[in-house]
């Protein structure tokens, strides 16, 4: 059992006995300190897709899924191939199935991901909570701010734009929180 606020991409919900993969989940505060989760669901049996809304405290049946470590092997158009790190099995996913993490996927990335399986079929991939990425473009520091409170846009090598602290420069490695795309700081590694 999961509550609405615990839903995240890769979760599989059981609704009317059908398994539904959460492809996207957006948390929003509605009013009076309550909140909702807007989701994009895909029926794993029929492929039918729909958008839904759940209250943060709604109780939902989730399906226990198998998980394995995997790394990105290569990208071919909209197809993303991941490799099981223990037995080297290759699995393919299309872009829609990993929509939520797509902004952080790029060729050559070495992050150890979690491949999510439903009845031995790969349905999604989850990234580590924190990933390190290179900034390929950002404007020079406008105000010389070193506090980290002033933010500016920066582009990653796959074209994704994120907000970073004003002191970050081109070619620097930054840490990003994959749950919300927020900047966490300069990479230490």
């Amino acid at each position, binding site marked *: 059992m999961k509550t609405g606020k615990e839903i995240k991409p890769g979760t599989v*919900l*059981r*609704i*009317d006995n059908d398994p539904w993969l959460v492809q996207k989940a*957006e948390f*929003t*505060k*509605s*009013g*009076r*300190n*309550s909140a*909702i989760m*807007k989701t994009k669901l895909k029926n794993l049996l029929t492929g039918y897709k*729909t*958008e*839904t*809304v*759940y*209250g943060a*405290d*709604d*109780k*939902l*049946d989730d399906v226990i899924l198998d998980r394995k470590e995997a790394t990105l092997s290569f990208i071919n158009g909209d197809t993303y191939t991941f490799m099981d790190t223990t037995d080297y099995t290759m699995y393919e996913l299309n872009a829609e199935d990993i929509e939520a993490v797509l902004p952080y996927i790029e060729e050559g990335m070495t992050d150890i991901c979690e491949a999510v399986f439903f009845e031995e079929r790969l349905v999604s991939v989850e990234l580590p909570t924190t990933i390190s990425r290179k900034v390929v473009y950002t404007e020079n520091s406008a105000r010389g701010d070193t506090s980290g409170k002033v933010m500016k846009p920066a582009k990653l090598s796959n074209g994704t734009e994120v907000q970073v602290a004003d002191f970050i420069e081109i070619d620097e490695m930054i840490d990003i929180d994959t749950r919300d795309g927020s900047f966490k700081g300069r990479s230490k590694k």
Partner: protein
Amino acid sequence: MKASWDIFCTVVDNYGDIGVTWRLARQLVAEHGLAVRLWVDDLNAFVPLCPAADANAEQQWHEGVDVRHWPAAWSATSPAEVVVGAFACQLPPAYIEAMSAQATPPLWLNLEYLSAEDWVEGCHGLPSPQPNGLRKVFFFPGFTARTGGLLREASVLASRDSLQSAPKQRAEFLAGLGVQVAPGSRLLSLFAYENRQLGSWLQALAAGTQATHLLVPQGRILADLAAWLEVATLAPGALHQRGALTVQVVPFVSQGDYDKLLWACDFNAVRGEDSFVRAQWAAVPMLWHIYVQDENAHWEKLEAFLALYRQGLSDPASVALTALWRAWNIDGDMGQAWQALQPHWDELQTHAREWAVAQAAQPDLATALVHFCRNSL
């Protein structure tokens, strides 16, 4: 046979939850011919809005609505054809079980909070399929065509126009509250949560050249008001003069009379959700005290509404209005912001009326709900 609706209302705090659901229930009965049960967990909050109500009654009828006490220990009840859970309230588990046991399970609507934020359009009307197979849908009130609209009774605008165009009728209504407004005096109403900026606003009103009569219904702002007036207590009828400002406390009135109070005033400070919407139908300039949320989530909601409401205002008027609303909600200098608003008074009056006309061109919330259900059942 009339279609049956159950509306569930949990009173969290204040009068917003019960205010909205009571209005909705009455309108569904009066204008759509529905059989409506309104389940309220705290009838003490209902009585001030409906003075004829009994806070201890398990069941009572008011204006055609079957008002029920929602007890902590739920008794088996046959579900209605349409079930509305207001503001994300959790329905009794036994009632949900009874819903799923129906041959034709009810349509379950979650009536959400009012917000002008962009995301509302993308969530309005979306399903929320439940593990037990029940059809639940999220329904969002709002200000744009892609939302559920605002609560607006069929007669409200005509009644407003009638009172606003008849000085005698207005004076008689105010006299019923014990209010006599001096000629040339500007009449304001104030319904707000506690607010540290009240003092600087009242100071500006007292020091101004324009005579102002401020009506303050009983409520949470009275302690701040008493502190500024330097009086120990304030009760309905209390009347105090400070410079150009006359302050008068009036009783907490029924919803119908509160509407008239808003129509009778030249400017209304309102709060939360229900009075905020009613002030818009009053079609005079207003100030909104938004409900404070964790992590200041309410700031975005305030800005989202301002972004809509400001459209059509000149830049100087827009800046002045924004500054006033931010000062009231984000602890700025209300006195200064109020002074800066004065040159734009006429424009804001015209704008308030145009805003009300534009909002009234959209389907009202009750009608939108009824149409949605007819199409879904």
